[in-house]
């Protein structure tokens, strides 16, 4: 039995591969198989490979790209798709456990499909450590599948550290108090080579651009350390933090949800604590 896995070099892909192994011997299609990126073409390649090899299932990481290509594959093949699974068991029907509400709820579901299509929620399954699977031979695709393709790339205007790739993020919430209040957040971020993040309350107030927003409808982050300053920790914000290795919460309210879900906490006024941390870093240099 062969299972097809859509892969790139990310950990999320190796996590998807680990789950895919339950469905057979994996063969991979590279996310870079079509350059520049053309999602319909990738879906066409996956569909053809799945048919040619009579694949038992097709699996990808539940990243933006992974979900997008798999949705196109599902539409093309006229099959259901279970997005953001954290587990799956082969069978008739396949049983899946998938994330909803940005991961704050889990859904157990039956996937009635002759060929289960699934994406795997990042950071929920241990990454596969085995050898990379053999790559499927890619055949040319039809012109009609290249109508939707990347024709240009715009680099970020701020030139700062990208949130999605940052090793450290210093993030501010409503507790920062104002647009100007972010000066101390930016100062600490600068000392740490960190990206600046924020909660939805902050973007709604117009203090920071939406590109800084962390959470379910903002950027999902995976830093070594996430420093949350004055963020209460609504479930939609926590949904963006699942990949964070360590969370430090600074808040005057010790009962704030983020204080209860952090690894480290400092209780008190962030307007005193954040500059004190910056001063301590300078002192030690």
């Amino acid at each position, binding site marked *: 039995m062969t299972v097809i896995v859509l892969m790139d070099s990310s950990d999320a892909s190796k996590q998807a591969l680990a789950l895919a192994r339950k469905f057979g011997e994996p063969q991979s299609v590279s996310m870079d198989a079509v350059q520049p990126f053309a999602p319909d073409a990738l879906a066409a390649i996956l569909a053809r490979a799945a048919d040619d090899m009579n694949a038992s299932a097709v699996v990808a990481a539940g990243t933006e790209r992974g979900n997008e290509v798999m949705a196109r594959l599902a539409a093309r093949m006229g099959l259901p798709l279970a997005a953001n699974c954290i587990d799956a068991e082969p069978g008739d*029907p396949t049983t899946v456990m998938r994330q909803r509400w940005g991961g704050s709820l889990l859904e157990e579901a039956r996937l009635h499909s002759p060929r289960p299509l699934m994406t795997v929620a990042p950071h929920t399954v241990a990454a596969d450590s085995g050898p990379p699977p053999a790559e499927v031979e890619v055949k040319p695709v039809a012109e009609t599948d290249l109508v939707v393709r990347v024709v240009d790339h715009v680099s970020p205007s701020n030139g700062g550290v990208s949130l999605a790739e940052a090793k450290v993020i210093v993030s501010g919430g409503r507790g920062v108090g104002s647009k100007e209040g972010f000066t101390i957040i930016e100062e600490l971020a600068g000392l740490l080579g960190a990206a600046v993040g924020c909660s939805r309350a902050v973007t709604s107030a117009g203090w920071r651009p939406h590109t800084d927003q962390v959470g379910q409808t903002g950027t999902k982050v995976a830093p070594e350390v996430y420093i949350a300053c004055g963020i209460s920790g609504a479930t939609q914000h926590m949904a963006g933090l699942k990949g964070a290795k360590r969370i430090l919460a600074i808040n005057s309210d010790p009962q704030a949800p983020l204080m209860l879900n952090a690894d480290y906490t*400092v209780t008190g006024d962030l307007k*005193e604590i954040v500059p004190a941390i910056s001063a301590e870093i300078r002192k030690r240099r």
Partner: protein
Amino acid sequence: MLTDDARAINTQHLGFTISPHEECGVEEAVRLIEANKGESVVLTLGPPEAVEQLRDAMALGIDRAIHLKTDRQEWDAESTAAALIEAIRADETSSGPFDLIFFGNESADSAGFQVGIRVAYALARPCVAGLKKVTLQGSSVRCEQEVDGGRDVYVVPLPAVLTVKEGLNLPRYPSVPGKMRARSKPMAESMPTRPVPRLELVKLAVPAGQGRRAESLGAGSAAAPAVVEMLQKAGVL
């Protein structure tokens, strides 16, 4: 809080709102029509209460609404798409084709990441997903999709289907006159039959905690040395 059968959230004491991605889709449609003239229509599949969100969208400037009513049972993404496809085809037959159809990139609740894309495939129109900026350029549309390290640009011909994300624009608040006007705008209703879902919900559960156990590094500015030591131990300083 879940319902007793664990198949839904108990919403008895909750309010509803348009999801953030879709709200930006509504705003973008209103802006495009303001700038280019024409007509905008809002379409949803949802329980009788969803009429409130349709009125909200019309208060922002959408011209008319189509409500595909459910009996509060959940519809999976495939069935939802099928009902929307049928409704869009019927509307286009009577009122002419849409140049653009906007969807939220993924729903806040079920997060299937697929309804807009399924509709696009069925209508044989190009679909660009996950957009943060949309610009009309004559008979095509330029789209910016946020990716790690910037934005990828796509240009596709109209008619097209676009799935959008929060951050596309800053949605306006409804005005009082807007709300008044919304009351008299046309609202079409139908009640499609729910197919047997192929992604069949068995039950919902609240996940176990992530196992983080907060360690206090102290209170106030006196905690700064302990914070710096933690950062050093984490290898980021």
